[in-house]
């Protein structure tokens, strides 16, 4: 059952992610990415981390992706410009970009290779999982209290930065 779910969610995630980068229309990309996040959330449930799963939906799908969708709708520039500008730098021709894609594939292969070379722990998970919210909370406000507080500052800075950047210039 678990294996079935894993392969189901995993395939959904991979497929959706592939389609995200294959779409020309960013709206579809955003929606497909949400689907991918949903699949990942399912994987988190399989990993006995229900809190992370729900937070994944709330934060990623419910907040960050809405922001993306918002911007896409606001700019209303769905299709990327495919026509190719001759004046651009020699390094920017489509060739080098394909080189980048090839690099990405090579990197994926390397990662899988690295994992398999050491044998890996193919077996099922051994120990117990920490899935209670209370335990996570205790960790978060205990040993991780300082980083946690720092992230609040980070968010504040990001918020102010976003407001300043996106503000229309006052005449």
């Amino acid at each position, binding site marked *: 059952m678990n294996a079935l779910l894993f392969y189901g969610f995993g395939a959904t995630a991979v497929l959706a992610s592939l389609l995200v980068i294959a779409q020309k229309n960013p709206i579809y990309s955003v929606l497909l990415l949400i689907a991918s996040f949903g699949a990942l959330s399912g994987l988190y449930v399989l*990993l006995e981390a229900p809190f992370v799963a729900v937070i994944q939906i709330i934060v990623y799908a419910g907040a960050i992706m809405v922001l993306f969708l918002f911007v896409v709708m606001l700019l209303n520039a769905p299709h990327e410009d495919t026509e190719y500008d001759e004046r651009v730098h020699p390094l920017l021709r489509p060739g080098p970009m394909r080189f980048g894609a090839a690099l990405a594939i090579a990197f994926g292969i390397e990662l899988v290779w690295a994992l398999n070379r050491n044998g890996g722990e193919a077996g099922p998970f051994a120990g117990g999982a920490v899935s209670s919210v209370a335990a996570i909370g205790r960790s978060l406000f205990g040993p*991780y209290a300082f980083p946690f507080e720092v992230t609040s500052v980070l968010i504040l800075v*990001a918020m102010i930065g976003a407001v300043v950047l996106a503000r229309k210039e006052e005449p």
Partner: protein
Amino acid sequence: MVGLNHYLVLSGVLFSIGTAGVFVRRNLITILLSIEIMLNAVNLTFVAFGRALGSADGQIMVFFVMTVAAAEAAVGLAIVISLFRHKESLNPDSFTGLRW
């Protein structure tokens, strides 16, 4: 049976997809989306390792990554908006005016 390695391989594949997305797309928003894919791939490894080690630390790291992702998305999209106002374009290659 599904084990740690399965999750790690899945994560590696997702990460590569994200990376490829950064290179092949010519739309700033899609590039940001690809970065989100990469971040999520990393999140998956955190949770998987946390599960394998029986510790909450993996999940906590995920929260931090999400925070950073939210901050990144907010600032990134704000930059995208102001860039778009200037050039009516989302192609990253049309913003090369600062190279020298």
